[in-house]
């Protein structure tokens, strides 16, 4: 049998930073020493259509697409995409919704990063790794705000 793989599905609409957040998780998993694969559908997504991105990591990952019924986590940056993604989720999948993020903790522009923080309550990757990746992913003037949003969302229990 193949080794178990962690599957994180990101979903939202064009312009919400789905691709960026999933790229950052991919990089984090890679630097944790995992094999990792990520795939997404874009093209027409820039025009306000649905965007989803699959991130898979573990000892060895084959398909870049999360098989139906195997997503462990759903990061639903847009609430209305939860139903669209239902078929991909495992029975007891963890769903992270916009309502899980206190609006005081992160502006809507940083929702994607705050949701990564929330996800890290489960993944427990070192915070220093995330800080490093956020700094590499954003211009200096907004990196610190994003780090703060990540930290506020990451604090607390699963």
């Amino acid at each position: 049998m193949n080794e178990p793989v962690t599957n994180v599905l990101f979903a939202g609409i064009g312009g919400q930073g789905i691709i960026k957040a999933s790229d950052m998780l991919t990089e984090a998993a890679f630097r944790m020493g995992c094999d990792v694969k990520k795939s997404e559908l874009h093209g027409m997504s820039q025009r306000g259509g649905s965007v989803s991105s699959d991130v898979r990591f573990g000892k060895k990952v084959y398909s870049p697409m999360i098989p139906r019924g195997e997503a462990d986590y759903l990061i639903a940056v847009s609430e209305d995409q939860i139903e669209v993604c239902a078929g991909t989720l495992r029975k007891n999948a963890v769903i992270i919704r916009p309502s899980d993020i206190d609006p005081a903790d992160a502006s809507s522009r940083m929702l994607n990063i705050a949701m990564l923080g929330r996800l890290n309550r489960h993944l427990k990757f070192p915070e220093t790794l995330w800080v490093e990746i956020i700094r590499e992913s954003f211009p200096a003037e907004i990196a610190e705000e994003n780090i703060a949003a990540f930290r506020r969302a990451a604090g607390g229990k699963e």
Partner: protein
Amino acid sequence: MAEKRVVLSGDEAVAEAALACGVMLGTGYPGTPSTEILEHFSAIGGKAQWSPNEKVALEVGIGVAFAGARSLVTMKHVGLNVAADPLFTLTYTGVEGGLVVVSADDPGMASSQNEQDNRLYAAAAHLPVFEPSDSREAYDFTLRAFALSEEFHTPVLLRMTTRVCHSRSPVTLREEKETPVSKPYRKNIQERVMVPAFAKKAHVTLFRKMEALARWNEKSDLNQTFGPETAERGIITSGAAFQHSMEAAPGARILKLGMTWPLPFEAIAKFVAGSKRTVVVEEGEKFLAGKILEHGIPVEPKADAFLFGELDVARVKKLLARDESPEPAAKPGRPPQLCPGCPHRKVFETLRDLGCIVSGDIGCYTLGVMPPFDAIDSCVCMGASIGAGLGLRHGLAEAEARKVVSVIGDSTFVHSGLTGIVEMVYNKPATGHLVLILDNATTAMTGLQENPATGRHLDMSETTPLNLAAVCKAIGADSVDVIDPTADNPGFVALVKERLASSDASVIIARRPCILQVKKLAKTKKQ
């Protein structure tokens, strides 16, 4: 050899390999999912340029290869239809410097008008095809493709698919980079001038070359086996389908083909002999299965249901189980639409309100088909709006013919609309015709690429802009107007009405920049 491990998309991996092996020039036309190859190649220091269309891109690549240097030519699958004319004779002439053509196929049509499988082109035009299955292979196979191209003096087709182009996975990069070189010019009339006398010999030479390539492929490590020596069932697969197969059937006996044309039939026969039954798992047409069966080797092709759409792990499980029960329908997501503030909106409102019959084209403006506009009547391929619009004018009764408008974007117009204007002037329909060029100053749908009319190169440096109005006038259109359809909407509506009422061959350039492009340019300037 120094190495570096990074996570890359398949497209980025191809670009990194091109830079590492000294590609002198990358050419192409933007098309999802291939666009990022040249963008990344340029970003990391390679010389890359957008061509007006894929045919020109390949022709420029051919010249680079005749000069003895390496060229990379990229396009989406349908782009190869445009470039097919040079391709089919390029295989006769062969190349001096390595030439790799990337065809990014789109099974499942995430962003395309059809699902064509371009491996069929390799068999028809007689050139080798490589199918990488992830980013690591996209990198390695690109390096190998350039080496093979020069060893056999043949162009090589690198067939990618959406899930290879747009997926990310770890790649080991070599740190050493070759410097692009050109060699002294070598004149060889018999090899390069395809008049019948020379082409007859070249065709035979090509046949022998393909035989030699097939022998090469028999021993190539581009093809790999996995699992036990023998098993009840074997699987032959390639590309992304290999990855799905490894997950759908853990531990299975698998022959993964990296070079899928010309096929290594002896190696395949040997593999097939090790199992009672061998199933071919492939995305797109039943290309491998068809060729292998034709060669008298007993394999099972996939069921017809899997000709449609992408494969994934669940579908490969069904394919292997010969389970033809209906598949669960995917829940529809939110459809794309014209952005709020998009300059095309006013155009389609006008065409809808005037009850026009709209011959459409390929680009963001194809979204004019969506409610609340419902204002596109047909969309076939790049540039078809003008020819098909003229055909509608010829074919419809006068009252309806007068409602026909062709709608085409600036980049698509440069790609293949110019000859349409020539046709309109040369064979003007009795009712005349109206072509609307929607000039939003960018190639928007594929992600805001430059084109000859924007006056900027791929790397944003300035060049002479193509003057669309001057070109249309020079071709001989009866009238050419330029108007902003949003800022002067009443003027635009009145102008369209007036041109439709006339029997002239008219062009209206509806000019207003894409709102996303305006933002991008402001950002670029700030940096």
